[in-house]
């Protein structure tokens, strides 16, 4: 998503895919964009050129190539497997709480055999409580939170991705994804429900700068206390020094020629 613009016209993308190879899509992406495929794909950016080289002039002859970056979009029921059951039980588990299922859930994405429930951030705590406490859901363990920074997705630059595991229900897994804009980096903490997430949230704060509201002690955990910046963000450089070897200089990894 390096130099992509947000939201391409999705219909033109689908028209392109009929041309197969001419569209520049990989077979996997063609499969994703196929009508009646797993889900209507969402365009999250575009990729220019054949090799994604950004340094110097593009001499490949493919510099005019523009390809959309497709990810699985919102899925329609039935989701398949135990995913429908999870959605039903979550809907029931949220009844009587602070938010209904329709209010809390932004969309559900089923992709590659994994279920992702996108939750609106203000309702995360209610969803987490339902996931843990409802006997039909009973996700005992949250295996941490992983931050992802998408600088080009305006209004939802920072994502927090939680993975839940239910041992009671034979190893069911569900992914909860929450996003927040970069200028309001607040997501409620779920440490009060899942104490195990304590260090994981501190790590995500440390690395991405997402503030988990309600966390008992949101301090840096991996970087020194006085470190400026949040290293895993895409606008934070990798750093490194050029290495000289026999008169030639090898630039640091983030400044080398790369193909993406």
């Amino acid at each position: 998503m390096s130099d992509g613009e947000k939201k391409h016209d999705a219909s033109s993308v689908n028209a392109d895919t009929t041309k197969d190879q001419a569209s520049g899509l990989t077979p996997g992406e063609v499969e994703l964009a196929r009508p009646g495929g797993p889900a209507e794909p969402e365009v999250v950016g575009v990729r220019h050129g054949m090799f994604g080289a950004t340094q110097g002039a593009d001499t490949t002859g493919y510099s005019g190539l523009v390809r959309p970056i497709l990810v699985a979009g919102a899925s329609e029921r039935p989701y398949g497997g135990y995913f429908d059951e999870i959605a039903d039980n979550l809907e029931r588990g949220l009844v009587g709480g602070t938010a209904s299922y329709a209010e809390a859930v932004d969309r559900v994405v089923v992709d590659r055999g994994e279920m992702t429930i996108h939750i609106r951030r203000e309702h995360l705590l209610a969803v987490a409580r339902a996931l843990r406490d409802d006997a039909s859901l009973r996700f005992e363990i949250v295996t941490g939170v992983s931050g992802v920074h998408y600088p080009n997705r305006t209004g939802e630059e920072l994502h927090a991705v939680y993975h839940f595991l239910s041992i009671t229900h034979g190893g069911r897994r569900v992914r909860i994804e929450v996003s927040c804009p970069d200028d309001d980096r607040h997501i409620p903490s779920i440490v009060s429900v899942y104490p195990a997430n304590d260090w994981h949230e501190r790590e995500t704060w440390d690395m991405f700068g997402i503030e988990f509201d309600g966390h008992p002690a949101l301090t840096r955990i991996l970087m020194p206390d006085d470190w400026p910046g949040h290293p895993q963000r895409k606008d934070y450089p990798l750093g490194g020094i050029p290495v000289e070897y026999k008169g030639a200089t090898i630039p640091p990894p983030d400044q080398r020629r790369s193909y993406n």
Partner: protein
Amino acid sequence: MSTHTEFTQTEVPEPGANDVYATSVADEQASEGAHVFNAAGGDWNDLVDEATSLGEERIVVNMGPQHPSTHGVLRLILEIDGETVTEARAGIGYLHTGIEKNMEYRTWVQGVTFCTRMDYLTPMFQEAAYCLAIEKLLGITDQIPERASVIRVLMMEMTRISSHLICLGTGGMEMGATTVMTVSFRERERLLRVIEMVTGLRMNNAYIRPGGVAQDLPPGCIDALREMIPEVRRGLGELEALLNENPILKGRTVDVGVLNLAGCMALGITGPVLRSTGLPHDLRKLDPYCGYETYDFEVKTRTSMDAYGRLRIRIDEMYESLKIIEQATDRLQADEGPVMVADKKIAWPAQLALGSDGLGNSLDHIREIMGTSMESLIHHFKLVTEGFRVPAGQAYVAIESPKGELGCHIVSDGGTRPYRAHFRDPSFNNLQAVAAMCEGSQIADVIVAVASIDPVMGGVDR
């Protein structure tokens, strides 16, 4: 005191918004008025006298980060009252090397050499979790050759034993039992010799690759495995005879570092610590990968919830791992086959071979790309420098590492490099249990409790 006043006279920059390295106000407030004892140099009796005269019973001690029994650079902040620990906190981050960030700047295949260095005692597990996640994103999970999966299982189980042996060995040494360490390391060498024979390296192997493994087993490997298995089994017997009913060891470990099932669930603890509460949770059974459902082995549990139970579980698990290794060896001996996915757009083009100057690209391959086929050369060059593309999306794969659930969450933007790679290291999560296990116990028990978690800071800090 005099030195303190001196410092205030000199020019100290005002802690302001511009000074990014300023200590926080909270830190200064917390330490204000507190008496700091410095144990560097001087007569210790003076220190004792000073402490006695103050009548302060509450003492905060830093154990680590450079303490031999903290498994690397773990810092334990202990508040002690006499010999009793009233509060225990773990400080981590001293070994943070930014591996996850670095992976975002290398190709998918290069990522293997990075993640293998996270938990350096279980390199195969990070590689396996990472590769399984990539394969899930690529949608080629079903195309991984059978033989590659068997080799992965073989390597993972050998690594599991070597990791458990380190846990027991260093754990024993921390309690003052050097023999446990020498026996453990002797047995570990047997495993490492075979791992080195297969991968060329004792650790940081980068052997499991997206699509399969780097190369097939070398000639003579099956014989080496057959020779190694009974020897290790005998060594484990020796270890058992030394430890299981040893009154000194039991005195140090029984009812130490107790954490019950509710505590484990709340803190997300997995691995031997969870199994010591009696819950037979093992991802190899619960959610099998790499064909673990086809192997005959048991999940070992105990119900004592203490360090002794965890130690016994680790010993029992090593026997189970040996059983899996035997079965994998049989399968590898019975069948030949490819060890890399058939898709040439993903499979690493070169096969390695042992030359007179060490392990390198096989001469056959060099001859082909340099001498006979221009297309092969282009293909090799493109795949090695540019790498393959992975369709955009995200995947999470969890496997059972010796320490618990090792998860790998990777995000692709459709490019040749990971957009984000995150590892849920079991040690990182399990270290959160230090407070629950240690508070209220003796200082000596802290060592045992931490050893029973078996944290490796390379994995914790990444």
